């Protein structure tokens, strides 16, 4: 049954906001009313000698490439350089239960009534209420005010499962790939779809890292954003990769993933030609990757996120190594990531959500 109407807890001591950036963070001014109570983890990509200006009044820690190298030593090789994938370093060093990550070209959107959308509050609501991956509810999230489970929904499934990830959407510049951007350069997403829903078990989706929140304790180690950018044959697939790995593991461990609200306003359209160069290989590779993830299965002995992830990296090497040598490197990086994660987060033996 739907939860009663209570104010959403702020969780200000339990949530970190992770922002990857190469430029000044003036965009935070617009978010100030919503973000100020929280601690920020800024991951500075690119040239470490550049000084990133953060607006006054925010509580933050900042890591540039030098910091990453110092903290991780040789394991820093798993963290991408010159790609927003480096943000996952922020997930690793955070000490909080929840992470919200946002791109620096994302601003506060307005809902149809003209009100500013508090994206963070919606993500928290999504994470604090259960998911329903085992049976589709046609009225979407049954735990939202004004909604419920429909006739025919089995009662034994109405408690739901813990929500590990909340995937938000974007108004204005949609998250299209380069070919679509080239064909439809002027298309803007103006449709506000007032729904949150659970992505069913066994279903994969393209996870976008622009407006994302997750429960670090439930799924953190699976949120590795891969090897992208400098020295790598591919870019703009970091969040995709993390999303596919994460979903397979969530399905295995009985955790939920939600998508839909909140919306943010995505202001910058990146250059489609540059994007095409980065994504080119990904567009071909994803034809192999999707069947791989759809058919992969994890043994029931894997009951922690780390053990699931390590098993997944073995399968990546075995089955995708032949698609391109990149995947051998990626599989190794996945293991490095888990080692680094466990080193930086020693006490938390992450169990499945049940």
């Amino acid at each position, binding site marked *: *049954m739907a939860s009663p109407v209570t104010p959403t807890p702020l969780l200000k001591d339990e949530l970190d906001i992770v922002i990857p950036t190469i430029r000044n963070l003036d965009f935070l001014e617009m978010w100030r009313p919503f973000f100020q109570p929280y601690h920020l983890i800024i991951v500075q990509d690119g040239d470490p000698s550049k000084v990133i200006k953060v607006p006054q009044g925010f509580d933050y820690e900042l890591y540039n490439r030098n910091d990453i190298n110092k903290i991780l030593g040789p394991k820093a090789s798993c963290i991408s350089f010159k790609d927003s994938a480096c943000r996952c370093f922020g997930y690793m060093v955070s000490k909080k239960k929840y992470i919200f990550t946002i791109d620096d070209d994302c601003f506060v959107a307005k809902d149809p009534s003209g009100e500013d959308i508090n994206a963070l509050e919606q993500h928290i609501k999504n994470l604090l209420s259960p998911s329903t991956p085992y*049976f*589709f509810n*046609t009225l*979407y999230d049954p735990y939202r005010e004004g909604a419920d489970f429909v*006739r025919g929904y089995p009662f034994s499934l109405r408690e739901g499962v813990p929500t590990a990830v909340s995937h938000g959407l974007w108004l204005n510049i949609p998250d*299209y790939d380069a070919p679509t951007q080239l064909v439809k350069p002027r298309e803007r997403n103006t*449709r506000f779809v007032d*729904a949150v829903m659970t992505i069913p078990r*066994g279903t994969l989706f393209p996870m976008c890292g622009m407006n994302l929140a997750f429960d670090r304790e439930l799924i953190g180690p699976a949120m590795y954003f891969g090897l992208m950018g400098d020295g790598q044959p591919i870019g703009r697939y970091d969040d995709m990769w993390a999303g596919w790995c994460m979903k397979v593991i969530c399905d295995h461990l009985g955790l939920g993933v939600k998508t839909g609200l909140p919306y943010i306003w995505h202001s910058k359209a990146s250059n489609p030609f540059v994007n095409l160069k980065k994504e080119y290989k990904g567009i071909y590779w994803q034809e192999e990757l999707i069947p791989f993830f759809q058919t992969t299965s994890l043994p029931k002995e894997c009951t922690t996120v780390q053990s699931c992830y390590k098993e997944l990296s073995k399968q990546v090497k075995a089955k995708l190594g032949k698609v391109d040598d990149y995947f051998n490197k990626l599989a190794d990086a996945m293991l490095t990531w888990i080692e680094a994660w466990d080193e930086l987060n020693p006490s938390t033996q992450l169990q499945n959500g049940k």
Partner: protein
Amino acid sequence: MSPPSLLSLAIDATLLNLHNISDLSFLPEHVLSDLFLRTLKAGKLTERILKIFIATEKEEVISMIQALNIQLVMTPVLPTSKLMSQVSIDKNEVDIVIAAFHSDLTSFLEEWRPIFSGFHLIVVQDPDLKEELKIPKGFDIDVYTKLDIDKLISSSNASMFSGYACRYFGYLVSKRKYIISIDDDCSPAKDNNGDVADIVIQHITNLKTPATPIFFNTLYDPYRKGSDFVRGYPFSLRSGVPCVLSCGLWLNLADYDAPTQSLKPELRNSRYVDAVLTVPKYSMMPMSGINIAFDRETVGPAIFPALKLAKEGKVRWETMEDIWCGLVVKVVCDHLQLGVKTGIPYVWRNERGSAIDSLKKEWEGVKLMEEVVPFFQTLKLSQDAVTAEACVTEMVVAIKKEKGRSHPELANAADNMVEWVKIWKEVQSRVLV
């Protein structure tokens, strides 16, 4: 031949200038009546002019209007929806099927007239309803009653079509490609812009654009105007699969079960979610018969009134036949690489019945779902099943084998499914019904 009188010429002149006239109340009655008759003869009686004549309140003219049964016909010019530019709707492909539980369908059909006008309607009268149906004029309608059901269906099977299930008879006798069906306690809903939601256009658009069950698109239906596949969506999956079932939603009284509605009598669905999306492959869902549309030619054999609860009644809270159907259809679609969409269009559902009264009846439906859902989730069909009929036939065997002994109502449902496929094949092969 005598020349026309001055009065006659004056009336003719009035007729020529009717477009400039907004008030005729000053005219003496006999002149008014003459003018009216000449207006009719000249074919100049428009809606505006009719209203002017009525406004005079002159008895003779009013009684002429009534005697000739002149009515204001409302076929409003609907704005060309953005959707229509993508999908063309051939009215000859669509049948709208309504089950009638109450004899007076006037207010229901009048509400839906702007949307249903021009389409062929099939009304199936609940066999238990004794009174003759009252149907307003101006619709292209065929009515089927208990007599028609008895003519076509053997008496042992006729009970399949009682209550809510009588509408399935309409699906059976339809000869068109698409069926749209709504409950008779539904009215047109308004979208977030205040425009009336045209369920026909939206359902047919859903059915005529592909579905994408293999991979979830986070911007929902990528074929909608203003939307597309997002980054990361495999290109090989972007042509989608044919959509054969479109499940709409409900504002006001949503399709909740009796316990939920009893516990929260004030709960009303006021959220219009402007999306339609494909239900992913292998994901089961509760199909609500309140507002659906489907491709009859492809999945007709899999949409049937098979599951009857022992104390099934005349309110939605006491039925499960649509839920059962939905589980069957989803398995069939997943197996045959076909798609199911859910979301818009919305209807406005009105109050009917008492949830608490429905609760009092023994509600086995709830208990049954616990058994039935895991069964369908793991059901696998063979490669040889390449049509909806073949799938249903295989399913029947599985149901009887695994659930038949422990659940007689499911064994019964399986029998009904067999009968349905038989009747379906028979009816389809006949030239005339």
